[in-house]
């Protein structure tokens, strides 16, 4: 709650170099900002700030204005005000060599700034075209200021580790990644992630930042089709994620589970229950049992959700594993090494498309043999598939990896 005393206390915070207390003062999130109008009007507070030669006079006045704009739902004004505060703080940071106590303040302000940007996007009521133009403009300004902040912090190499601002660059990058991911411009993030990954002193970053960073890097790599890199990064994020933040773990798992499935690693029912991942429930069952029809239905049913997660195409790649499991189940029941292709077609009619033709079934088998998922050969004269006596359905991570690869990525020498 803002009172005269609280406003005046900023001087003390400043003198004590108490970045956290100042950050708390400037935060738009957990302040009981609704109360200020009852006890003190904003004008009074501004007057107090102006009269008392406070260290952050301009920023405090601007901050109170932002609060006012937010309460009046004028998010564009709020954004502009907050941007000015942020730019000022970044300037202070630039001139303060060998000290980093102001970093928490800058971080709080820039996160709030991003929230205001989002709030503008979702809540502003102006016409669509106008809003889009404004939003793009705001976003550009935001990125520009963040880049400025980033340069100051990453260039702060001469200060002793205790006073260096370098520890926060991952945080800054994360904020920018969030903006770019929202608008799905992943190609713009490559340079940012690279600077972090090339960092020689990666252990200076707090775990919380590391988790976010690797999560977003993983998402980007899924979009680009680099599944193995994405999997590694998401595993780092998952393992270091705070034990009790179920929400974050769920987010990571939504991406990690399909990637693991690509390599033949299926999630247990307990895991899915624990993290409330119902969207994978039927999918896993159909994968394990080889029910192609059910698998396709699942994808259709949760289409929107999967697309939102960015895993739709990853799941589409799993179809070869479903076919494999179906054939394997059938082979175990038939208990015969020689199976007529017509029988396979009949099997597919039941568990996949009712209109499956002989040629369809044959081309599926050809594909499986080509990928090494199924060992054996087809005979055209007898219209039969002959399975290898020894281990016709090999398992292992590299087999599944090959099963789900794109056709142009399979190299046969």
């Amino acid at each position: 709650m803002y009172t005269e005393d609280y406003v005046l206390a900023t001087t003390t915070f400043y003198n004590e170099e108490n970045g956290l207390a100042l950050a708390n003062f400037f935060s738009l999130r957990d302040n009981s900002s609704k109360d200020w109008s009852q006890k003190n009007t904003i004008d009074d507070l501004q007057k107090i700030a102006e009269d008392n030669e406070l260290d952050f006079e301009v920023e405090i006045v601007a901050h109170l204005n932002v609060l006012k704009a937010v309460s009046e739902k004028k998010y564009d004004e709020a954004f502009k005000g907050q941007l000015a505060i942020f730019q000022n703080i970044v300037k202070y940071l630039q001139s303060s060599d060998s000290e980093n106590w102001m970093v928490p303040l800058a971080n709080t302000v820039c996160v709030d700034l991003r929230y205001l940007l989002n709030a503008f996007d979702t809540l502003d009521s102006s016409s669509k075209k106008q809003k889009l133009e404004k939003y793009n403009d705001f976003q550009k300004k935001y990125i520009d200021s963040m880049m400025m902040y980033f340069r100051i912090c990453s260039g702060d190499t001469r200060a002793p580790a205790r006073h260096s601002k370098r520890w926060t660059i991952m945080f800054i990058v994360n904020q920018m990644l969030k903006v770019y991911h929202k608008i799905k411009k992943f190609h713009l993030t490559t340079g940012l992630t690279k600077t972090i990954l090339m960092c020689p002193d990666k252990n200076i970053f707090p775990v919380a930042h590391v988790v976010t960073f690797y999560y977003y890097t993983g998402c980007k790599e899924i979009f680009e089709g680099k599944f193995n890199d994405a999997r590694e990064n998401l595993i780092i994020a998952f393992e270091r994620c705070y034990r009790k933040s179920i929400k974050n773990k769920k987010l990571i798992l939504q991406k990690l589970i399909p990637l693991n499935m690509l390599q033949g690693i299926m999630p247990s029912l307990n895991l899915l229950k624990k993290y409330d991942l119902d969207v994978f429930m039927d999918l896993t069952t159909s994968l394990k049992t080889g029910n192609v029809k059910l698998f396709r239905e699942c994808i259709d049913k949760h289409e929107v959700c999967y697309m939102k997660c960015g895993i739709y195409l990853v799941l589409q790649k799993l179809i070869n594993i479903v076919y494999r499991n179906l054939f394997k189940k059938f082979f175990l029941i038939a208990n015969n090494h020689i199976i007529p292709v017509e029988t396979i077609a009949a099997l597919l009619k039941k568990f996949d498309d009712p209109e499956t033709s002989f040629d369809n079934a044959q081309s599926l088998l050809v594909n499986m043999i080509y990928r090494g998922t199924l060992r054996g050969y087809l005979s055209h004269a007898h219209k039969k598939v002959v399975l290898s006596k020894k281990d016709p359905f090999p398992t292992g991570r590299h087999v599944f990896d090959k099963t789900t690869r794109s056709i142009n990525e399979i190299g046969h020498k």
Partner: protein
Amino acid sequence: MVPVKATCMQMCPKDEITMRKSRKLLHQLERDPYQMVKCFSRSAAGCSLNKPHLLRPPSVLMNTISYLLNDVLKIVNVPFNIIYDFIDDRLSAIKQDATIQEVSKQNWMNILPPIIRFYAYAAYMCYEYNINIYDPYLNMKHFHECVLKFIKICLEDSNETTTDELCSEMVSLLIVANLGDYNVLQQGLPFISKKNNLVKKTMLLSVNIMNGNFGDLLKVYNELPAIHQCVISVQLPILRKYILQSMCFGFNCKNNFFPISILTNCLLLNNDKETTEVCKHYGILMIDYKAELSKSLFNIEVDEPRIRKKIQFNVNVSTMILHKQK
């Protein structure tokens, strides 16, 4: 900066007509002054392109497009590669004019589709030309530039319902132009949720090819519009290589012969003679109209033979490309 207001009401500005006449720079397809169309010229130091009297407003641009694709495309007594070069150059000038004067999104939506279809058609028509006469890479580059621009505009104002059909046609064209390409599929995803048949169909085809299941290629190919077949037709040679190679793995057994007529069907070739040619090219043994598919004999090092699948155009090509609204 305020965009320039175009004032040139002809297909070719007067200045350019006099200049090109005096220097004898007339193209062989421009015998009369009223047949002349503005050339594409790069921006260079000293020559300013944004003079109002050199730029054509959107309505004139549309007329120019329909002149090029209706009248010029029909000409039969000139080799197609010359017609292609002419139209390609003039279409680039149209795109340039539209860019300089910053035409509205609605205008772009009208200008781009015929251009995109023309490039798709040209990819098929020019496929068998020598690289020195026609560069397929450049053609597809122009195609992608236009399609991606169109899709970007579609994504920006998605509330327009009237353009849905056009948009799905363009997205599906982009998908079939890059069959099996994961990144292109990612770009097409936002359009699948509209439950459009064409997008969904091409999407599934591309996913199947990505996964190596070629079973429904022929079936879907036959169901697609001719313009889509054009861009698929030129990708078939590389797809045939994948198909044939995987078949060599699948049917790899001694004395296991495969009739050519079925192979022709699998590989989407025009006749058995071509199939024999393709098989021999990859080192496959041929005995009495039968092929011995063997993985050890398959030669992966050779380039794919450039054979396109012949397409029957049931409608007038110009009508198909311009896609006149009824």
